[in-house]
């Protein structure tokens, strides 16, 4: 077991050395003193409140006549008993000359009781301790400023000693601060709002400890976030200068910040500056209009609605057609075709509504009555559907592929030159008119919208004689 004993002693000494190394440097003292500052304030305020209440048993009017804490404390621990007040002593304590007369007159004829010296001695001790706490706070702030100007000179010049130290305390080490982005520095101190924003989608916070910066405090509400952002950006540069020991000062950056603050304060809602673009997208002339921009008549692959199929609006009594009816699968015979839906000339076989099954006399008020169409439903001629081209087999040699081979290959664009297979890539909306690279069949010329009712009214035009 000697092995283990030696190991143990070695490791204890090495752990002690490492602990020593971590506490070297001034960062540690800065962080601890900043944490103390806030606690000192709160502690001294606590004790002063108790003091005022206690001394008011002896001299209550003084609480209202001397509102400032420093002269109040001095009066108590130097003089104590209200019978020993003199004008000289009050002046030395730091009271205003206007109030000295009042204090002297009320001191003799006051509501408070006459207390013994033993009791007043305890009150004096309390007053002394409060005074020492406030003095310690002042010395601590001076110490903070000195040590921050040595450790992080540029950072403390831009941000101020106290705010800079608070940010350092939150982050932990100088190294972490130096490698932090400016947006992180901007938001240090508002962690609660930050995590709400990240996890639950709330608004992002604009400032953390930087809210107390004088430039941010002086700005209007709309401009606070903008200045906080620019301050944080400069702070990030300043920290890197300090960490990597660049002997340059932060005076220029400070000037720029003040100029920006002035510029923002002069802004009014009317004279907001317009954004300046270095690059402007070129105006596209003679461009083929995009699919969305075309009129519905010009969209080649979507049919125009028949006038007889259009439905103006639905009354409140009418039942909304189900989803199946929109797709064309009408369960109830006799109900008319909706205006939205697929092309009626391409309806699949076997799902035709039976026009002849229900005579018109059996229609109820629930059914939709085609008031816009004078003809009854079953008097219409049945539709003639165009058979799909790929369903019928064609004789050999007459098959055509969707892609037509271009004759000249050197005039065409690179994406058109591919001889085999389909064209690759999606067609661009600003492509030339001559290109054949389209996913939806052949090109059709833009022209007058076709009146399909004419075709169906005259079935002989395409398919010859067909009997019903």
């Amino acid at each position, binding site marked *: 077991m000697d*092995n283990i004993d030696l*190991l*143990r002693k070695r*490791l*204890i000494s090495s*752990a002690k050395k490492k*602990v020593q190394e*971590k506490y070297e440097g001034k960062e540690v003292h800065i962080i601890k003193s900043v944490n103390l500052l806030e606690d000192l304030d709160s502690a001294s305020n606590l004790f002063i409140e108790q003091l005022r209440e206690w001394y008011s048993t002896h001299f209550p009017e003084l609480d209202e006549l001397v509102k400032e804490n420093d002269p109040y404390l001095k009066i108590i621990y130097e003089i104590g008993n209200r019978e020993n007040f003199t004008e000289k002593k009050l002046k030395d304590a730091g009271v205003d000359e206007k109030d000295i007369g009042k204090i002297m007159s009320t001191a003799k004829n006051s509501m408070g009781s006459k207390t013994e010296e033993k009791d007043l001695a305890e009150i004096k001790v309390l007053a002394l301790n409060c005074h020492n706490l406030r003095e310690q706070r002042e010395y601590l702030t001076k110490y903070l400023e000195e040590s921050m100007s040595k450790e992080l000179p540029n950072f403390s010049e831009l941000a101020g000693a106290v705010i800079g130290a608070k940010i350092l305390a939150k982050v932990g080490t100088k190294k972490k601060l130096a490698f932090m982005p400016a947006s992180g520095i901007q938001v240090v101190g508002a962690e609660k709002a930050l995590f709400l924003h990240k*996890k639950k989608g709330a608004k992002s916070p604009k400032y953390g400890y930087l809210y107390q910066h004088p430039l941010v405090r002086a700005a209007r509400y709309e401009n606070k976030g903008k200045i906080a952002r620019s301050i944080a950006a400069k702070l990030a540069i300043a920290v890197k200068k300090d960490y990597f020991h660049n002997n340059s000062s932060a005076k220029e950056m400070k000037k720029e910040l003040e100029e920006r603050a002035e510029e923002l304060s002069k802004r009014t809602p009317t004279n907001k500056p317009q954004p300046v673009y270095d690059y402007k997208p070129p105006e596209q002339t003679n461009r083929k209009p995009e699919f969305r921009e075309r009129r519905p008549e010009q969209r080649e692959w979507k049919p125009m609605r028949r006038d007889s199929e259009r439905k103006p609006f639905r009354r409140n009594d009418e039942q909304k057609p189900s989803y199946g009816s929109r797709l064309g699968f009408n369960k109830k015979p006799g109900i008319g075709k909706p205006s939205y839906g697929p092309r009626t000339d391409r309806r699949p076989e076997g799902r035709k509504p039976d026009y002849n099954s229900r005579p018109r006399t059996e229609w109820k008020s629930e059914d939709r009555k085609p008031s816009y169409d004078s003809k009854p439903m079953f008097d219409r001629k049945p539709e003639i559907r165009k058979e799909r081209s790929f369903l019928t087999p064609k004789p050999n040699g007459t098959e055509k592929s969707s892609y037509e081979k271009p004759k000249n290959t050197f005039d065409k664009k690179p994406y058109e030159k591919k001889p085999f297979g389909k064209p690759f890539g999606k067609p661009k909306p600003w492509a030339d008119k001559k290109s054949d690279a389209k996913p939806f069949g052949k090109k059709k010329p833009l022209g007058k919208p076709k009146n399909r009712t004419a075709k169906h009214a005259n079935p002989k035009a395409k398919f010859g004689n067909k009997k019903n």
Partner: protein
Amino acid sequence: MKQLKQLLDGVYEIQSNLATVNLTPGKKVYGEELVHAEGKEFRLWNPNRSKVGAAIKKGIKTIHLKKGSKVLYLGAAEGTTISHLSDIVEKEGTIFGVDISARSMRKFIYLCEQRPNLIPILGDANQPNTYREYLNGFTIDALFQDVSQKNQAEIFLRNARLYLKRDGHGFLSIKAKSIDSSASVEKLVMEETKKLENEFEILETIPLHPFEKDHAMIHCIKK
């Protein structure tokens, strides 16, 4: 007369309080109570401050510790749990305590100087190769982990592959909030057990409610 009952090797129960026999009689570690019974001095174990103590109270079957066993403890902190483990292991055994923060090391080193079976290591459990030279000749019987990091299972696996012997027991305490504070605890515990399934045989998973909120302890054996 105080009722004494033995639950496990070295762990006793006095009037519904957990206790261990004090290695350094007369000294307290974190302000716990000292109790005399049957001619020995016992230190009471607070399950609210220690995850292993909470697991024992919830009914874990073994800790796999006895006289002379060797233990690796990741996440030592100030030594509240480790002091009880060193009471169980007694002078013949050793415990290596690893921690990353210097502030808690200060108190832990003070503890190590008082007890001859504790060894401190100031290092990152995420990089077990940094303290490999110290643990080279030792076979470790049990591995405890109480680290609140996102990749808890990964740390456990890395350290176990290097140091834990075969058929050695591992005790991993999962803090669900440090992995994902918005997801449900059961899902996270299931995911972590899946990561360990290949190399470990999982015996039990114990939730540590009401002593610790959203915590669980996984007890497993290395294959």
